[in-house]
Structure formats: structure tokens, C-alpha cells
């Protein structure tokens, strides 16, 4: 470790935030760009499965809530792209990386939303898992990222409650609604467990990231925490978690549960999830169809600036 690296690590160990102008190891910067960028992209792509139900939301109130939520997600994307920009990478560069497939987004958004209860499940399970991941990141070592996470977590927990509220309505509703709720849980349970990533034993980057406080808890710890929190909620809803092996382990003080199908996880990561193609095509189309708008607004801004100079 060079003296610079040692000083850097001392600051982190002392819980002093790293700020954009501070020296930092290249690998720290690169890891952060990858992590923040991927998170930002997830917020953007994450609009699509929910957007799929905006035009079919069953009441005006539900439609308004869903719109507000999707708007928040775009806002989160914005915070995160700004945080990434402090590391010297522009939003357009990150977008190009997303569209070319060089950067990823959370695989969960490659699953379809097929009935209205899915919108509840996305809030309850997906946002629930996201919060589980994000809450510790409020204490992450990089200042702008930490501050973005603080803002985001506040809104996310609101979203999670709204999602749970939808599930509650559905679980207490008609037979068809109950069936929708169970169907949603069946389809989103394992993909939600996958959101924490494969077991840390298999993850190469984890140790360094944890030392740098870019990553705070292990994937398995977070997954266990999620299961422990979610199972009683499912029970309260009267829904059945689709796992025969799910059982409270008195000794461990945790639930035992089945691992998700990691083959499926890696397939989805490779682009073979149910919706990868649709999601990427959706984003590509938005970007390509919007080129004339971005160009037009840019040209106008330049004209205005030129006129202003000429007038001075």
C-alpha cells in the first residue's frame, strides 16, 4: 500500500467521507462508477415494468400514486447520475454504456408485470429488497453517493409501504384479486432474493469493496435479513411464500429458505431474461427517437446565448 493509499484507507476507517476533489485509488473510482451507474440505470429501466400498468391503473388514486412513484424513480436516476458525474463520467457516456450493453441494470427489471398485484409486489418485494441493499449505503464512504442514498432511501420506504398497501387490498379483495396477489408473490419471490447477488463466497470484488465501505454488508446477510422481514409480512397477508423448505430455525434465529435458481440468474444477466430485449429496445428507442429533441434544444440554447452576447 502506498502512503497515499494508506492515508485514504485511514480516512475511510475513521468514517470521514471521500469527496470528489480528494485523491482516490483508480480502482475505487472505477468500482464506484460501475456501482452508481448501474444503480442509476436500474432506476431508469425500472420505470418500464411499472409504466406498463400506468395506463391500466384501476383507480384515479392508484394511477396518481404510481405516476408519483415513477417520477420519483426518474428523480433517483438523476441524483445518481449527478453523483457519478462527480467522478468524472458524464450522463451521456453512462447512457451509451447502458445502451451498448457494456453496463448493466438490476436484473429484476427483466421480469414482466403481468397483473395489477405485480405493481404491489414490485413495491413490497423489489423496493423492499432495494432498501435492504441501500440503507447501509447511506453510510458509504463516498460523500456524494452517501448523500444521494439518504434522499433515495427516504422515498423508497414510502414506495415500499404503498406497494404493501396494494398487496393488502388485493389479499383482502375478491377471489380473483387474492389469486393475483399470490401469483405475483410466486413470480417475484425468487427474483427478489436474487437481487442481493450470488453468495459472497463466489464474489471476487466483495472484500475490497467492503474495506472501502462501498459495500457494507455481505450479500447473504442482506438476503437473510430480507427473508426474515418479508416472511411474516406474507403471512400477515395470508399469502404463501413459494418455498417448501421455508421454515423458522429456532437455533439460528432466522428462517431457513431455498436458494433461488442461480442458473436463471446468470441467464438473465447474459440477456436471456423474459424482458431483457424489450427493456433495452424500449430505452434504445427512447434515446434514438429523442435525438432530434436533444439536438433541437441544444441548438436553441446556443442561439440564445449567441443573441445574448450580440446584444451585450
Amino acid at each position: 500500500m502506498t502512503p497515499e493509499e494508506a492515508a485514504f484507507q485511514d480516512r475511510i476507517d475513521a468514517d470521514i467521507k471521500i469527496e470528489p476533489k480528494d485523491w482516490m485509488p483508480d480502482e475505487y473510482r472505477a468500482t464506484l462508477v460501475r456501482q452508481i451507474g448501474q444503480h442509476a440505470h436500474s432506476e431508469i429501466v425500472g420505470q418500464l415494468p411499472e409504466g406498463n400498468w400506468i395506463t391500466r391503473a384501476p383507480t384515479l388514486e392508484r394511477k396518481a400514486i404510481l405516476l408519483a412513484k415513477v417520477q420519483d424513480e426518474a428523480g433517483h436516476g438523476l441524483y445518481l447520475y449527478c453523483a457519478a458525474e462527480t467522478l468524472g463520467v458524464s450522463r451521456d457516456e453512462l447512457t451509451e454504456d447502458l445502451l451498448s450493453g457494456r453496463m448493466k441494470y438490476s436484473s429484476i427489471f427483466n421480469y414482466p408485470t403481468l397483473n395489477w398485484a405485480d405493481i404491489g409486489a414490485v413495491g413490497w418485494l423489489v423496493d423492499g429488497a432495494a432498501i435492504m441493499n441501500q440503507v447501509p449505503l447511506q453510510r458509504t464512504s463516498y460523500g456524494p453517493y452517501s448523500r444521494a442514498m439518504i434522499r433515495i432511501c427516504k422515498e423508497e420506504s414510502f414506495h415500499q409501504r404503498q406497494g404493501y398497501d396494494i398487496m393488502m387490498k388485493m389479499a383482502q379483495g375478491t377471489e380473483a384479486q387474492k389469486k393475483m396477489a399470490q401469483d405475483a408473490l410466486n413470480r417475484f419471490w425468487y427474483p427478489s432474493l436474487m437481487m442481493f447477488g450470488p453468495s459472497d463466497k463466489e464474489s471476487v470484488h466483495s472484500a475490497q469493496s467492503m474495506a472501502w465501505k462501498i459495500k457494507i454488508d455481505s450479500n447473504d446477510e442482506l438476503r437473510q435479513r430480507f427473508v426474515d422481514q418479508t416472511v411474516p409480512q406474507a403471512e400477515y397477508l395470508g399469502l404463501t411464500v413459494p418455498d417448501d423448505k421455508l421454515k423458522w430455525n429456532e437455533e439460528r434465529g432466522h428462517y431457513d429458505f431455498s436458494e433461488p435458481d442461480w442458473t436463471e440468474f446468470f441467464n438473465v444477466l447474459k440477456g436471456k431474461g423474459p424482458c431483457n430485449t424489450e427493456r433495452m429496445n424500449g430505452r434504445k428507442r427512447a434515446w434514438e427517437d429523442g435525438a432530434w429533441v436533444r439536438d433541437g434544444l441544444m441548438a436553441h440554447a446556443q442561439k440564445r446565448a449567441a443573441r445574448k452576447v450580440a446584444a451585450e
Partner: protein
Amino acid sequence: MATKDHSADLFEFLLRMGDNTLILGHRVSEWCGHAPVLEEDIALANTALDLIGQTQLWLGLAGEVEGQGRSADDLAFLRDAWDFRNVLLVELPNGDFGQTLMRQFLFDAWQELMLDALKGSSDARVAEIAAKAAKEVAYHVERSGDTVIGLGDGTEESHARMQAALDYLYPYVGEMFESDAVDAAMAQAGIAPDPASLRDAYDAKLAAVMGEATLSTPDDRFTHNGGRTGRMHTEHLGHILTSMQWLQRAYPGASW
């Protein structure tokens, strides 16, 4: 408050207000996640959200005035196309981003004037909704106007697209200023202005914005109509309803 004698006309007037915001809100919400730039995704979602919020107020009051126990949701999700009273403009397809923003500006500019007049409505409930909505719409019209200007006076391509959008949409503008017996009753009761009385101010606003945008407003004042009277909507409305009303139709009586 002047409701008793005018309740049928007032109901009709409130449907017109609420159906405008409902259908336009629906259209705008179709953009979700597909805007040309992230800030626009946020702005479009925000606009849709405001419009749906206004719909809750207008249609909520409409149901109250009707007095048959219909909620805002009942009115939104359980009427078929012929019972809708929105102007045709708001049903038209999104087209490209320019067409969506042009439609938005043409509507916002009308809505701003209408709400401003409604703030002085003799019906306190109407005045209250108008006051709340006016704050949101002041922001909408500023934003949509700026975008029309930016794209109109942008590149050659953006200018051409915005001119095409204006040419396509302008023949639907006049309907917002048409008056009929309902409007006469509302005007007489001091509840709402005669829409025709708003046209001069609208034209002035349009001239200013289109001037800056270097766009030519068509001379021809011919207008399509039939939406706000329910006589004849476009074919688009029926398709909007298939999505919008799907769950309420497929699962009648469920609570969401």
C-alpha cells in the same frame, strides 16, 4: 352558491373540465419511461400526475352535483366513449415528443385562462378547485411554451417537426372556445366564463409563443368538434378506454 337550478348544466360543465384532464393525463402518462431525456420523463410524469389530481377534483364534484352516488372513479372508469365530454384535442395520439408538447401547450394556454376566470366563480367549490389547479397549470404552460419555443427555434429538423405538429393540431383548437346552452347557463349563473370570451387572450398568447418559436399559425379557423358536446369523438377515445378501464370492466365491483 348557485347549484340548484343549474345542476344538470353544472354536471355537464364539470364533466368537460374533468374529462379534459383525465384523457390528457392518460395520454401524457403513456410516455412513461420513453422521453428523450430524463428531465422530460420527470416533467411528463409530473404533468400527468397534476392532471389526474385535477380530474379527481372535477369528477368528484361532478358526481356530487349529479347526486346519484357516482364517485370520480365511477365516472372515469364506467362510462363509455359517448358519455365523455373532453375536447377532441386531448384524445389525439402522442405522435412524437414535439406533437405531445405542442398539444400540451395548446391545451395549457387555454386551461390557464379558463382557470383564471374560474377562480372568481360564483360556485365556491369550483373556485377552490380552480385556484389549486391554476398553480400547477402556471408551471405547465411555462414549461410547454418554453419547449415549443426551444424546438421551434432549434434545428431545421426540430422546426419542421414542430410546424407539422402545429398544422396537425391547430384544427382542433377552436373547439375549446365553442359555446352552447351549457356554457350560456354557466355564464349567466356566474359559475364559468363563456369560452368564446377567452379566445382573444389565447390568440395573443399563441402569437407571442409561436412568434418566438418561429412557427406559423395556420390562418384557417376551421375547427373539428363534437367532443365537448359528446356528439362525435375521434376513433382514438375508444382505444384509450380499453386500457384505462380494463381492470374496472374485467373485475366489476372489486376494491383496489
